[in-house]
C-alpha cells in the first residue's frame, strides 16, 4: 500500500485547563523507526494514546493508511500494537495464557492464535517458560512478555511506550535485539523514551517533544548537524611557559573559546576536524608541547539541551 502508514495532523488534547498535547503533526512511512523523545510530562504518552486510538483528540485527526479510527472496535486497531509503559500482564496465569487472551481480544482464535502465541514467545525468548505463571518471572522477562503481548496479532505498526523502564542492562539488550529484529522484518516503529542512547541505537528519525509540542523532527544526522557548534576539545600540555600564545590561539579562525586551567587546555570550536589542525599548528609555532588530546562530538543530548534549554531527564 502506498502512502504513509500513519499520519497525525494537528493533534490537541486537553485535561481541564492543562494542555497535554498542543498541535502534534507526524507522518510515518512503512518500515520507519521513529524515536519520540522528550522529558517526563512532555506529552509523549498522551500522544501515543491518541495514535493508538485509546484517546480521542480534542482537535486534529489520526489516520491509519489514510483512514481515521471509527468506534472502539475499528478493525484498523488490529494493525497497531501497543506496548504500554506499565506491565499490563496477569501474574496469576501463564505467559502462554496471557498471550492467548490478548490475541483473542484481537479476534484471533484456534490454530492461528496458537501459532501466533508460539511465534511471539519464541521471538522474545520465553518459549521455555511459556507454561509458568508470570508472577514468577523476573522484571526483564516480564518486560519481554509485555512486548510479546503487543506482537501476538502481528501488527504492522508498533507503538512502544518506554519499553525498557526499570530493566537491567542484560534484559535491555535483549529487548533491543527484539526491536532490531522487528525492524529487519519491516515493522514500523514509534518508540518513546527519554534515553538518548536508545533512540540513537534503534531509530533513524527523531521527533523531539516538549510541553506538548514538536520542537524538532529530523534524522539523527540532520539533528547532529544542528549541534555542530558544540564541538569541544581538551588537550594536556607540557612546557607551558607563559600565556601569550593563549591570546593568539583565541584569534585562530574557527575557535570559539579557549581556556587554560593548570596544564589542561579546553576549547570550543566550530568544526572539530578543521579546528584541531589550526589549534595544533598554533601551539607548535609557540613551542607548546601536547601530551594528550581528546575531542567530544555533539550528540543528541546536546541537541536536546540546545533546543529545550534543559536536560532530557529533568522532571
Amino acid at each position, binding site marked *: 500500500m502506498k502512502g504513509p502508514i500513519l499520519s497525525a495532523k494537528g493533534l490537541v488534547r486537553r485535561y481541564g485547563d492543562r494542555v497535554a498535547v498542543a498541535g502534534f503533526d507526524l507522518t510515518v512511512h512503512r518500515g520507519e523507526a521513529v524515536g519520540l523523545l522528550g522529558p517526563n510530562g512532555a506529552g509523549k504518552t498522551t500522544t501515543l494514546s491518541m495514535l493508538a486510538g*485509546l*484517546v480521542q483528540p480534542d482537535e486534529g485527526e489520526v489516520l491509519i493508511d489514510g483512514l481515521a479510527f471509527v468506534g*472502539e472496535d475499528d478493525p484498523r486497531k488490529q494493525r497497531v500494537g*501497543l506496548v504500554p509503559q506499565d506491565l499490563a500482564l496477569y501474574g496469576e*496465569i501463564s505467559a502462554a495464557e496471557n498471550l492467548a487472551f490478548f490475541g483473542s481480544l484481537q479476534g484471533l482464535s484456534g490454530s492461528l492464535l496458537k501459532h501466533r502465541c508460539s511465534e511471539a514467545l519464541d521471538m522474545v525468548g520465553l518459549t521455555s517458560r511459556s507454561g509458568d*505463571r508470570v508472577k514468577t518471572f523476573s522484571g526483564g522477562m516480564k518486560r519481554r512478555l509485555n512486548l510479546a503481548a503487543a506482537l501476538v496479532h502481528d501488527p504492522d505498526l508498533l507503538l512502544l511506550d518506554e519499553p525498557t523502564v526499570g530493566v537491567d542492562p542484560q534484559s535491555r539488550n535483549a529487548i533491543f535485539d527484539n526491536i532490531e529484529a522487528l525492524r529487519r522484518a519491516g515493522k514500523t516503529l514509534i518508540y518513546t523514551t527519554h534515553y538518548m542512547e536508545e533512540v540513537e541505537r534503534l531509530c533513524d528519525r527523531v521527533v523531539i517533544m516538549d510541553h506538548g509540542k514538536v520542537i524538532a523532527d529530523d534524522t539523527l544526522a540532520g539533528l547532529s548537524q544542528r549541534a555542530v557548534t558544540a564541538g569541544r576539545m581538551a588537550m594536556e600540555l607540557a612546557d607551558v611557559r607563559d600565556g601569550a600564545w593563549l591570546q593568539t590561539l583565541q584569534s585562530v579562525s574557527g575557535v570559539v573559546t579557549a581556556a587554560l586551567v593548570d596544564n589542561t587546555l579546553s576549547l570550543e570550536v566550530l568544526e572539530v576536524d578543521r579546528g584541531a589542525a589550526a589549534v595544533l599548528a598554533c601551539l607548535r609555532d609557540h613551542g607548546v608541547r601536547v601530551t594528550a588530546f581528546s575531542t567530544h562530538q555533539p550528540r543528541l543530548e546536546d541537541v536536546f539541551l540546545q533546543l529545550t534549554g534543559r536536560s532530557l531527564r529533568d522532571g
Partner: protein
Amino acid sequence: MKTLTQLVALVRLDLRLFLADRRALIMLFVVPIGIASFMGSLFGGSGTKGGKGGIGGGGGMDIVMVDEDGSAVSRGVVAAFQNDAQFKVLLTNAAAARDLVLNGKRPVALVLPKRFGADAIPGWFDAKRRPEITVWHDPSRSMERSLVEGLLVPKVVQAVAGNALTPEVGRDFIRKGLTNLDRGPGRMLGQSERFREWLQRSDDYLATLPSGGRLTTGGTNTFSIPLPFSTKSQALTRTATAEYNGYAHSFAGMGIQFVLMSLLDMSIGLLRDREAGMFRRLRAAPLRRGTWLLAKTLSFGLISLVSLTGCFAFAIVVFGVRIEGSWAGFAACLMAVSAMSATLALTIAAIGGTPAGTRGVGIAALLMLVMVGGAWVPAFVFPKWLQSVSRVTPTRWAVDGLDAMTWRGLGWEAAVGPIGALVAFTALFGLIAWLRFRWETE
C-alpha cells in the same frame, strides 16, 4: 464472531483468575458455609422435628424459678413449666435467681411469692388479694420474656384449678355469685334468670362430688375449669412434607452476603487493573466497552451462581435442606440473584472510582443491604418500618425468593415476584455501571 471470541476470552480469563486465587475461593465457599452452618444452628437448626438448641430449638429455654410459697398451687406452677419441653427450669432462691439474670446466664426468672396458693382463689374475685408473680428478665432478651409471660397464664390457671379449687370452694363461689345476682338487678342484661339456672345446676353438680376432692383438668369424675380454647400447633408450609429448616434461610443469607463481598473484591481488582495500565492494552484492541462490561457481568454472575449452588448443595447434603417448592423457581431465583449481584458489584466500582474509595463505600453499602435485607436474621423480626424499608433492597427479594422455594415450599408462581424485582434491580445497576464506569485511564 469477533465479539463472541472476545466475550468468551474475557469470561474465561475471569474464571481462570478466580480459580487461581485461593483466597477468593475460600471467601466464596468455605467462609459462607461455615458461618451459615453456625447461623442455621442458632435459628432453629434442621427443622421442627428433632431440632436442636436455639430459641426455637428443642433443647429448651433455660429459665429460673423461685418458689417462696411451697404450696401445692405454687408447686403445680413449677411442675407445669418443668413438664413443658420448651423450658429447662432451674429452681433456686431469689438471690441466686436475681444474680443469674443480672449476669446474663438466664434470660428470665419467675418468683412465686409467699401465700401464692392461699391467695390465688380469692384473688380471682378480689383484686386486693391477688398475688403478684415477679418476672425478672434480661433487658436484651425480650423475646424470651414475652414467651414466658405468655405461657405463664394457662399454667397458673391450671395449677390453681387443679390444686386449690375443691367442690366446697366451688359451691362457696356459686353462692356468692347468686347473692351478687340478687343484689344487682338487670346486671345480666335480662338474662339473669338463665344465669341463675346455670349457677344452680353447677351447685347441684358440685354437691354430688365427694367432699375434699380436687378439681382437676380432665378425668371423668372430676370437676374442671377448662381453658376457653385449645391450641393445635402446625408449621404452615405449602407441601405436607415441608418443614422449617433454619439452615435454608442462613445458607441463602450468608451465601448472598459472601457472593456480594467476593464480587466487590473482584470489582476492586478491575479498578486496580485500570490504575496499573491494563485498560490501555484492552482498549488498544478492537474491543467495545459494552462487550467488556457484558463479559464482566457474565463472569461475575457465573461465579456467583456456582458459589450459591455450592453452598446450597452443601446445605442439602449435610443439613438436610430441601427444595420443598419449585426446582425451576429455585434455579431461576439463583440466576436472578447472581445477575443482580454481578451488576451491583460493577455499580459500586463505577461509583467508588478508586480501589480505596470503592472498598470503603462498598463494604458499608453491602453490609447495610444484607443486614436490612434479612440475610442475617429473617426480616419478620424487624420493626414494621424497617420491614417496609427492606422492601426496596435487592437482598430482601433475593432472600425471600430463596426462602419461598426452599423451606416455605411454595410453587414457582411465588418466585415470579422476587425474580421480577431482581431483574429490575439488575437492569438498574447495569444501567448505572454502563453510564458511570470509567473506561479511559488518561
